């Protein structure tokens, strides 16, 4: 079996062993969304107006929490250092891990956002736009949060440092996605913005794994 298949198979088995890893972020997302009307008002017009933005931010947070410890257990078990002996460049393996993470951990999160949308009475066409922006934008977000996770591997008391370090880099993605949502609400053309967002994701997905692998190598070099 090739390393690629082995990697995906391992990821699936890990999910089977710890299903909570998938459900906790979803739970978090729905919980945060339920707080919104409680903190604001059960006024469906008001909720519909801010709903898509709230869902975006909540999904972003859920994704960050989810990705923060992406490499932590493999690092402390010493499995991560074995990756260096596999017959592939580390950046490629890291990319695979990120793809697997997106498929098995981020995608389920996106798929439950319609429920959150219903809770905040977001109109259908905006909800569809929301789903599309999440599909297009989350690869970039996953890569960046993976980098945050890798950079803080070596520090034992980092807390949520990885999240804090990476959050400012999300700004362009959030702005572009919000632009798409605004245009979807107006009914104007969203395609150019989606294309930009997609381009950002593609570039991030090709370049960030290299930075992640450098960060991992660096932390392996420093651990005893």
């Amino acid at each position, binding site marked *: 079996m090739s*390393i690629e298949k082995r990697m995906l198979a391992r990821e699936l*088995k890990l999910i089977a062993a710890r299903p909570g890893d998938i459900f906790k972020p979803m739970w978090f997302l729905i919980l945060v969304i339920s707080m919104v009307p409680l903190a604001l008002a059960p006024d469906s017009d008001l909720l519909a107006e801010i709903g898509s933005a709230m869902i975006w931010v909540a999904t972003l947070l859920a994704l960050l929490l989810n990705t923060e410890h992406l490499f932590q257990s493999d690092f402390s078990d*010493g*499995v991560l*250092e074995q990756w*260096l*002996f*596999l017959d592939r460049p580390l950046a490629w393996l890291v990319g695979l891990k990120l793809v697997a993470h997106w498929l098995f951990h981020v995608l389920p999160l996106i798929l439950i956002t319609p429920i959150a949308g219903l809770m905040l009475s977001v109109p259908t066409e905006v909800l569809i736009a929301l789903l599309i922006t999440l599909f297009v934008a989350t690869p970039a977000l996953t890569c960046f949060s993976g980098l945050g996770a890798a950079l803080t591997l070596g520090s034992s008391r980092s807390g949520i440092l990885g999240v804090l370090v990476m959050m400012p880099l999300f700004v362009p993605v959030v702005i572009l996605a919000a632009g798409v949502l605004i245009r979807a609400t107006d009914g104007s053309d969203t395609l150019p913005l989606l294309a930009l967002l997609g381009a950002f994701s593609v570039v991030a997905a090709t370049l960030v794994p290299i930075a992640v692998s450098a960060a991992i190598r660096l932390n392996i*070099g420093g651990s*005893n």
Partner: protein
Amino acid sequence: MIFEPIQIEISQLRCERDDRLLFKNLSIKLESGQILRVAGPNGAGKTTLLRTLAGLFDIQEGEIRLNQQPLKEYLERILYIGHKPQVTKDLTVLDNLKFLTDVDETALKSALSAVGLKGYHDSLVKELSQGQGRRCALARLWCVDAPIWILDEPYTALDVDMVKTLDARITEHVANGGVCLFTTHQPPQQLDYQTLELGHVD
């Protein structure tokens, strides 16, 4: 399987960590059939030396060559087992091995019975004892054909029987033309090894 002849040449290696000089002017030659035990007190740089040889640490000064080639070209011929568990607790014994090795299941199962984990292949590692977990990590020695073994504290948590089994396996490996480097605090009885003492700089 019989390995091609291997020559490891360490010349003028020097390493400093956290402002402390661990070793300097370290030069060793190792060839097929040799076993080297790296000894020394805690903090002498044993793990650092092994990890440098495995390519996990950058060389600060000096050179390591394998068959006259730089180390980087040889990483896939190295089998490194560190002192961390090297296994994932939430996976089964077999799945752990399957991820790190590209060997079919029958070979993996025979490796598992060699380390006394026969019948445990479907158990999760977290259900095993510490010694059994260590055996699972060491099972790779029976199914991967890398000529260079670098083992950091392989004897930790092993019982007397398993120590004997491991000694026999290392002896067999070097007889086939392999090389083995290891560290330990309990000198093994049945191995014919050379010792490198670290911890005498300044």
